[in-house]
C-alpha cells in the first residue's frame, strides 16, 4: 500500500468536475447501481471515493479503476448527496493522464482527434457507401482550428508522453 496523501481529497475536489468527493457519506448506493461493478469486482465507485478520502493517491492514480467507468451517470443521478461521482471520474482521469496513466484505446482516439479532427476516421467501406448513395464527400473539418485549440490547451503534450 502506498503512503497516504492527506491533501489528495482536496486536490480532486479542486479539479474541474471533482467537487463531489467532498459530499460522499459512503452509503454505497452508487456501487450497487453501477453496471460495471456488477461484472468487475475491482470497479467499486464507493471504494474509489473512500480511497480518495483516505488519501491513497498512488493507488487511485495508477490503478485501472477510473478507466472502467462508462460515464453512464447512473451513480450521479442516484447519489443522495449530490456526490457527482460520474463527474469525479473525469476529474480523476484528467489527473491520471497528467501523470502518464492513459489506456491505449483512449490514446488512439485522442491522437486521431489531433491529426484529423475526428476521434474515429472513416473506414474505406464507409467512404464507398457514401458514394453509392449519393451522400457525397464526408463533411469538411477545419483540422487547423482543432490543432490550434489543442496546442493552446497543451492537449498535444498530454498525448505525447510515453506510457
Amino acid at each position: 500500500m502506498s503512503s497516504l496523501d492527506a491533501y489528495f481529497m482536496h486536490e480532486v475536489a479542486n479539479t474541474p468536475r471533482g467537487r463531489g468527493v467532498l459530499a460522499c457519506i459512503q452509503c454505497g448506493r452508487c456501487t450497487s447501481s453501477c453496471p460495471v461493478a456488477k461484472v468487475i469486482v475491482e470497479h467499486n465507485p464507493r471504494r474509489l471515493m473512500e480511497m480518495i478520502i483516505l488519501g491513497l493517491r498512488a493507488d487511485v492514480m495508477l490503478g485501472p479503476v477510473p478507466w472502467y467507468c462508462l460515464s453512464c451517470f447512473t451513480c450521479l443521478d442516484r447519489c443522495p448527496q449530490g456526490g457527482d461521482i460520474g463527474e469525479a471520474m473525469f476529474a480523476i482521469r484528467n489527473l491520471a493522464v497528467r501523470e502518464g496513466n492513459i489506456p491505449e484505446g483512449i490514446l488512439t482516439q485522442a491522437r486521431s482527434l489531433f491529426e484529423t479532427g475526428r476521434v474515429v476516421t472513416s473506414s474505406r467501406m464507409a467512404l464507398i457507401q457514401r458514394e453509392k448513395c449519393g451522400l457525397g464527400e464526408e463533411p469538411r473539418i477545419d483540422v487547423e482550428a482543432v490543432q490550434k485549440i489543442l496546442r493552446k490547451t497543451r492537449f498535444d503534450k498530454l498525448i505525447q508522453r510515453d506510457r
Partner: protein
Amino acid sequence: MNFVRYAFFLGCLIPAREPNYENSVRKIAPKLGVELVEMDGANCCAPFSVQSVDYISWLALAARNLCIAEQMGLDILTLCNDCYESLLMTNMILKEDRETREKVNAILADVGQQFKGKTDVKIFSDVLYEDVGLEKVKNAVKAPFNGLRVAVQPGCHLTKPKRIHFGERTGVRALGELVEVTGAKSISYSAKDACCGGPLRGINDVVASDVAKQKLDSMKAAGVDCIVTVCPFCFLELDRGQLEIKRHSKEEYGLPVLHYAELLRIAMGMKLEDWEMKTHKIPIIKILNTVEAK
C-alpha cells in the same frame, strides 16, 4: 408545410461507420418538415475519450461547434447521444460559469470564435416529438409495422445526468411514443435504463461485452423481435456486440438492431437499399415482413 431549421451536427461516428443512419435521416427529414443545414468546418464534439484527457480541451472543442451554430442563428440537431451530452453540458457550463467561459473564449479567440450562449442543442428524437409532433409523424406513416415487438434502447445520455435534461427534455417517453406511432410496440424490459457498454468498446472489450450482455439478456427475456436505438454507439455495441459475444461465449441472441430513423423510414413506405441492409450485422430482413402495405 412549415419547416423547422436546425444546424445539422453529424459527429464523427456516423460518417465514419454508419452512413446509412445519415442517409435515412436525410431521406425522412424533408418529408417531416425538418431542414438540416450543414455546419461548415464543425469538429468532433469531444466525447468521453477526449473529456477523460483534458477538461478545457473538451469545452473549447465543443464550444467551437456551438459558436458555429450561433453564427448560423440556429439551434443544433444531433443524431448521437454522446454528441448531445457533450454539447449540451458544455452549453450549460459556459452559460453559467463566467470564469470558465472567459478561459474558453480566450482560446476560441485564436480561431476567430466567441461563445455567446445563444444556441440550444437538441437530439433528433426530441425534435421529432416537440417540433414536428406525433400527429405529423403518424400521418407520414404509410406502411406501418404490424405490432412489431421493439426493445427501445434510449441510451444513457438521452436522459442522464437528470439535472441537465430534467424538465425541458422529453427523452425516453418521447422515444417510446415515436416508436409506437410506426405501428410497432414498445416492450417493457427490466434493464431499459441500463448502459449498453459502448463507451468502453476499444478500450476494454471484456467489460463492454459483459455490460452489453446484461442488456441483451433482459431484452431476450422480455421476448422482443428487435432493438431500436437513437445513439450510433448503442447501435454498434448492440449490433456488432452480439457477434463479439457469440465469438467468446457462443451465446446467440439473433436480435436485429435498427436506428429509429430507419424504422421510421421503412414505416413511411421507403425501402432500405441493399448496402444499407448489409451494415446491420444481425440481419434485419425478417422484421421487414411485419410491415403492412396500406
